[in-house]
Each structure stands twice: as C-alpha cells, then as structure tokens.
C-alpha cells in the first residue's frame, strides 16, 4: 500500500520529500505501525513526537491505511 508522509522543520531533511516540498510517497505493508515505517526508512522514531492525521493527534503505534496522508511532528521545547 502507499502512504504520504509530511514533515517540516528539522524532520523534513531526514524525510527526503519527493512529491512536493514537504511530502514523501512511501510504499509499505499493511498493518505496520508508523514507528515501524519510520525505522524502515531510516528515521529515528525518537525524533518524532507524534503524528497528525485527519485533524487528530496519534501516537507512533498508529497503523495507517492505504492512501493516507500523515504529518510527522518533531518535538520542541515548551514556551
């Protein structure tokens, strides 16, 4: 299946977007968690605080479905 990962700031460089400035198309297997997918593409999951999809925050154990677009949110120091 295919998912679309998006990232900005420091994570963007690690993601290596190919569709547009922020987005990378990833072919992966059904049933894999975001954490596993990140490991597959060589991104340390600890550098992702959470993922954001369809207006909701999800943890790294979230299992995406085919065609889904998912934003990776980097951790940041509080205010």
């Amino acid at each position, binding site marked *: 299946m295919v998912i679309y990962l998006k990232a900005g*700031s*420091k994570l963007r460089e690690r993601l290596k977007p190919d569709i547009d400035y922020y987005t990378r198309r990833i072919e992966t297997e059904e049933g894999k968690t975001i954490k596993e997918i990140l490991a597959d593409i060589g991104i340390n999951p600890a550098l992702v605080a959470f993922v*954001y999809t369809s207006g909701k*925050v999800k943890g790294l154990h979230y299992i995406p479905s085919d065609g889904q677009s998912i934003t990776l*949110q980097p951790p940041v*120091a509080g*205010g």
Partner: protein
Amino acid sequence: MNNGLAGTTLRVNLTTGEIKRFPTDEKLFRRWHGGRGVIAKLLYDEVPRNADPFGPENIFIVNVGIMSGCYIPSGSKTEFGSISPLTNGHGDSNMGGHLGPMLKFAGYDMLIFTGISPKPVFLYIDNDTVELRDAAKYWGIGSLDCEEQLKKDLGEDFEIATIGPAGENGVLFSCITHDFGRQAGRTGQGTVMGSKKLKAIAVRGNRSILVHDLEALKKQVAEIIQRTKKHPNMEPWQKYGTSFFIRWSNDNAVLPAYNFKTTYYEDVGKIDGDQLIEHCLITHKACFGCWMNCGKYTKAVVEGRPVVHLEGPEYETAATCGSNLGMKDINHVAYINWMMDNLGMDSMSGGGVTAFAMECFEKGFITKEDLEGYTLKWGSLDDVEHFLDMVVHKRGIGEWFAGGSKRAAEKIGKGSEKFAMQVKGQEMSGYDGRWAPGMLLSYMTADIGAHHNRSWTITVDMAEGRESVEGRAKIVVYLQHIRPLFDTWCICRLFWGELDISPEEIVESLNHITGWGITVDEALRTSEMIWNLTRCHYLERNRDIGRVFDYPPARSWEEKIPSGPGKGKGVTKEQVEKMLDEYYEARGWDENGNPTREVLVDLELDFAADNLEKIGFLGKPIPGGVPPIRGEKYKPKAF
C-alpha cells in the same frame, strides 16, 4: 525614526514620582539590538555591584526591542530585566501577548524604573499621558483578578501587566502576568516589581511604527504568510499547542517525575494533551501578529472548588506542576497552574520548589507539624494548595521555600541540596538532563540559572548519541547565541523556529525594519557579546571563579534514572567535568570558567575585562590565543 523604534524612553523614579522622557538611544539599540541586549548593558552600567536586588539601586527595565509591534509574524514579545533576587545576577524574562506592541503604539521603546515607591502604585500610559497612579485598591489581589479589575476601571483596550501577592510579599520566584495567562516567569522579575511597590503597568496607544523599507517588508511577510499557511506543523500547533509533547518526553526519558527522581511517569495519560483538549479547552489564543495561536484558554473543574479560567497548562507547567508533583488529573494540574498564575509565581520554579518540599516531606526532613497539620504528599491538590498559601504568605517554613529550593535546602540541611533541582538558584524547567547531557550542560551554563530557553538540545542529544558528552559543548554555545536573539529582538522563537523560517530570513526582516544591513554572523557576534557581558556581571556580583556556579545538584550524576525507558542511564561526575572543560574551551574562557581578556577584547568588552581584572577573576590567558571558531561556525549538522 524609520527603524522600528517608537522613539521615546521613559525613566520613572518611583521614590520621587518623577517621570522623565528621553529620545530612545538609537546607538545603544544598534549596538545591543534591544530587548535582552540593551537590558544587559544597562544593568551592567547602572546597578552598583553591591546593590541589593530588593533595594532602590536595582533598576527594573521593560524593553520592547526592535521587532515587537512591527509588521512581521509574532512580533509580540516584551522583555523585562533587573538584577535577579533569585540568582543575584543579570536577570531577564519575556512574555508574549500584546503589551510590548501596545507600548510602542503609545510611543515607548523602554521603561526604566528606579527607586522604591513609598506606596503601591501602577504606571498608567495613554499615549502622551503618563502617570503613576495609586494602587491601594489593587494591592493584595491576584494577578489575574487585578488585570480584570484594571480593565473594568480603565477600559478593555488597555494592555496590562500585573504582579500577584507573591511579588508583593517578596517570594523570590514571582512572575509578571499579562493577557490572563502570559507570564514573564523566570528570574523573579515580579519580585523586583513588588519590591518597588509597582503593582501593574497599563498602557493604551494608537500610533504607528515607522520602518526602513515597508514595501520590502510587506513583500517578505506576504511570502511568509503564504508559506507558513501550508507548513505541516501549523495545524497541529494551532489545535494542540505544546501540551502534546509531554507523552513524547515520557517515552524518551526526559520528563521529570517526583522531583526529578525519575524520568518515567506511569500516569502520563492522565495529564497529557489529550486530556487537556478533552476536559479543559475553551478556545485557542494567540499573541499579537501570530496565526499559530499556540495558547490554549482553558478551565479547571475540581469538585468543591470554584471553576477557574486560565491559559494552559502548556508543556513546561504540565511537567513541572504535573508529573513532577505526581498529579493524576489534568484538572488538578490546571488548577495548580491557575493558583500559581493568580498568586503570581513562576510555575516552573513554583513546581520545582513544591516538588522539592514534597520529597523533603517524604524523607521526613519536614513534618506535618512544620506544615501546620497538613501533609505534603505526591498528587495531593489539597496539600499543594495549603503549601503554596504558606509560601506566598511566608508563614513558618513557607518563608524558607519562598526563597526557592536552593535557599530552602540551606535551611533544611541533611543533604537536601543534592535534590534541590536548580542551578544558580533557579529551578530547572520541564526536562531531566541525566540522559540528555547537552540539556544538562545547557542548564548548568545558562546565564540566568537553569532554564531551557537559552539552549534546548534534547533532539540533538538523541541524534548525536545520548551516552556520550563529546562535542556537546560546541552545540550548546551555538544555541546560547542563536536562541537568545529572539529575546533580544522581541519576537517569538516558536513561530520562527518551528515553521522553517531561517535565521537569514529573520535578519532580512530586521534589516527591512532597521536599515542596518547586517548578517547572521554579526547578529551571533552580538549575542556572544551579550553572553560574555552577563557572565562578567555574574562574577563581579558573586565574587568567585565561574566554575563553582556551574554545577547542577548532585542527583544529576549520583543517581541513575531508576525506572522507565531510561532505567540505569545517567551521566557521571567525570562527564559533567569534561563537559564544563569543553564548554569553557569553546567559549575561550579559562578552565575556571572565567572569561579571558583576549575574548572580551575581541568582543569589544575591554571595560568588562578591566573590571574582572580588578577583582581578580579575569581568566588566565589561553595558550595559543582565542579560539577563532566561536558561534556560527559551531553550527552543528542537526541545524
């Protein structure tokens, strides 16, 4: 003035009530870039080294910087400064909201308060009308209550900064509050306001700010607006703010729990961002000129207590007043946040001091008798409420804790200083640095005591290897130069930093505003100059070699993390020493942590070198000369 400045500086002598107007010193702003930089220079020049932070010789400065209030994103910050009663060194702290821009719209870049008022007053500014007004009616009431009352009395369109009873009573970690939830929390700036009997500042204005090249600025900002609208970080930030990072901190062993005993909080799910949004959120809130609106306006609903309204808890407060106190209900954390806000206490230090007291109670170092019959157990809202009441009124042992955890540990003894989680008297923010050594070094070397905003390295620690301390010093030096520039220019680090706006673009905006035509390197050099000046100031006031002030409490190296994903991890004392050695070397200071003449002269701070030499704390010359690679060239790969 076509350079972002409003044009006028006010000097307010609180002892005599005299208010004088001066043209803003453009050369001073050009050289020190406003905000924290101008504050550092004025404190260095104007406050005698032996002046008591509570005395009339301490000055209290409100500085709006160059970029605040201008036509740029998040130009919202106001910087406050005075000698910190908490650290006894240069102190500064800032907040967002709308106060700074409004001060500029009224025509003022800077307010400098001297002396001590014989009675409580507030400063009233309505464009050209500037008056010290009687504040008897407001003295003694909470920060948030006072802001509400002043708005009723003066008009909704006034922007207001207040202190609470903590500042009035001399609690050393008192904050300044504005916009019902924005705080300049750190270094006890609210304490200094209170010591001067200055309850509030209320301002209204309707003038324009002129800039060097408005067309170029408009073009640049229009492009930033379009770009940031599409940025993937924007929507999550708008919806959730910083509260969602608490779970990540827990998963990655940096979340302080139970007074930094561990970095794993088993009940994180009860206090994290999901809970905040589900149970407390009322609406989203933004500062001036910002469309990221990370502020969350909320309510705390606790049975048997009135429903209260507040902004937050954002990440730092959720950590320092949540997991660090063992709280198990987001409404309780929000209620503590509200109490601290209304009492006028910095919630980071307030949480740190309360957690320290809880551990002292657990160990039997303080007892029910000391606490007027109350206990002080992890997770008890009743206990925290009573303890804070003792602190704010300095009743019994409350007086010890009103001085912060360092001073309280000196009273309590029994080795309690090992777990008073502070550096230079200021409590740590919401990150444990035992398995994030760069973060620990950031706390150790921050010029205002343990605070994350000068340097935050946790993702760098992860990327570079958490077991090793190698190379961390250079990263910390770079961050200590780049991050405080936001407090110097008075814009929001979160907006510019998290939405991929590069330092070059920020400097371009600064140039459109000022016409200075500077580079990022020049800005970093100014930041290094400010950093060295605040270091010299600290040594001149505290009269010892720098190194003795740069150690964290012994828990940081004596105790490994006992539970969770970081179990068994932690730095050694040798690693702490090594990081300090590398840090001083990277700064061009000697091994005692004293700035050297070579570096100070290179930064045109010859006067500071002379002053350090007179008191015997000038660093020994560095064999081989000054390292040529301070600042920008240390920029690590991760950036």
